[in-house]
């Protein structure tokens, strides 16, 4: 019970901090937009090609954006020297991770939902017919990115060169998410859409594996 109420309080804090300035969200949205446009300049796809490669590019943009967005997650606590008081405030340090990863998932989802219409327009992909499944994939993928990313941002915040280090640690670990989410999204946006349930199941497994790992080992990342 304690874990849940602690998490809820901390989640409230994370959301308040972000929505006061909305720095993270605005920057991330613009970043994804820039990357998507640059992709289409780099490969100038035909209509058929953008249907085929679009989802992969979208996920790549999300991954890059996430590796930047997750940067301040623990860094902010460290800069303001608030990490030790956070640790003292909660009975289970997992609550800190849980609050942060829920907040990060929400931020990522929000930016994705803002980006989807633009993606559909720029890449000429109709997204409406399969929207509910697409949102499910976006949710599971973003959750996985946030779980691993929150853990790794606690690591990178304590190292030198942290701005470069986080993407370096994070992106190889997220290869499964990229491969599976891109494939599932591509088959959803195909001319004859198919729901790859096996892929969706895989994403659930990925999320569960790393959530368990974070639950077991997360507290060591916050040791003084």
């Amino acid at each position: 019970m304690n874990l849940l109420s602690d998490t809820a309080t901390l989640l409230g804090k994370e959301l308040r901090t972000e929505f006061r300035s909305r720095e993270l969200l605005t920057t991330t949205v613009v970043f994804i937009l820039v990357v998507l446009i640059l992709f289409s300049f780099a490969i100038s796809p035909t209509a058929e090609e953008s249907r085929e490669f679009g989802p992969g590019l979208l996920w790549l943009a999300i991954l890059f954006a996430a590796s930047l967005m997750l940067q301040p997650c623990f860094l902010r606590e460290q800069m303001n020297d608030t990490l030790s008081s956070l640790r003292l405030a909660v009975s289970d340090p997992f609550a800190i991770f849980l609050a942060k990863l829920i907040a990060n998932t929400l931020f990522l989802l929000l930016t994705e939902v803002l980006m989807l219409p633009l993606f559909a327009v720029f890449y000429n992909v109709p997204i409406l017919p399969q929207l509910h499944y697409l949102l499910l994939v976006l949710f599971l993928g973003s959750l996985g990115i946030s779980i691993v990313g929150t853990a790794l941002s606690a690591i990178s915040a304590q190292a030198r060169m942290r701005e470069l280090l986080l993407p370096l640690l994070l992106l190889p670990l997220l290869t499964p998410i990229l491969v599976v989410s891109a494939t599932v999204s591509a088959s959803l946006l195909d001319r004859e859409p198919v729901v790859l349930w096996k892929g969706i199941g895989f994403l659930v497994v990925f999320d569960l594996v790393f959530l368990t790992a974070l639950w077991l080992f997360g507290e060591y990342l916050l040791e003084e």
Partner: protein
Amino acid sequence: MTKRIILGAVAIVLVIAAAYASFYIAPEERTMGVIQRIFYFHVGSAWAGMDAFLVCFIANLLYVWKRAAKYDWLGVSAAEVGLVFTTVVLITGPIWAKPVWGIWWTWDARLTSTFVLWLLYVSYLLLRTLIEEQDRRALLSSVFGIFAFLDVPLVFGAIRWWRTQHPSPVIMGGPGSGLEPTMRKVFFFSVLAMHFLMAFLIVERYALEKMKYEVDVLKREAEPQ
């Protein structure tokens, strides 16, 4: 010390014997010809590298649990040695693939997951160079090592199921796979030799890491307060 010398000698003799066996004892493969002989070292290194990463994973778990510096030394030693073997795999693979498949590289399941594995452990070693404090470095890199190892089966599964065109495994594969008996013997002998080499390298690297630690301690003691 003597144990290390004996282990080293055994490893070297075994590797030379494995090289001899794979060139002169194993029969020539019918379609691929002489280039197939690289397979004994290629797959042997792959298995030894994978097992070195397994050692690293166990050392990481033990460090988090027991907090003894020796597990940290073992972790970094195993990761480095595993990386060397995986590099051998990534180099010998294309040498074989060019004449047989006609291309140096293809994004098939095993190639790609080996490459991702290689990247993960490069990140692990990089992370270690970027944290100053010893205990913190040991703890944080151990947790990252655990995450990285958990990722390996997921990477392999994801690529295997959704990025197709993989040739089916020859060893422990389905029906229709398998090796000619002499080839099989030479193959498992090479695997054994590579494992001895791996163990020898890890032991040496571990001794070096331990010495580094001891020098650090001495240096700190010698410094005027």
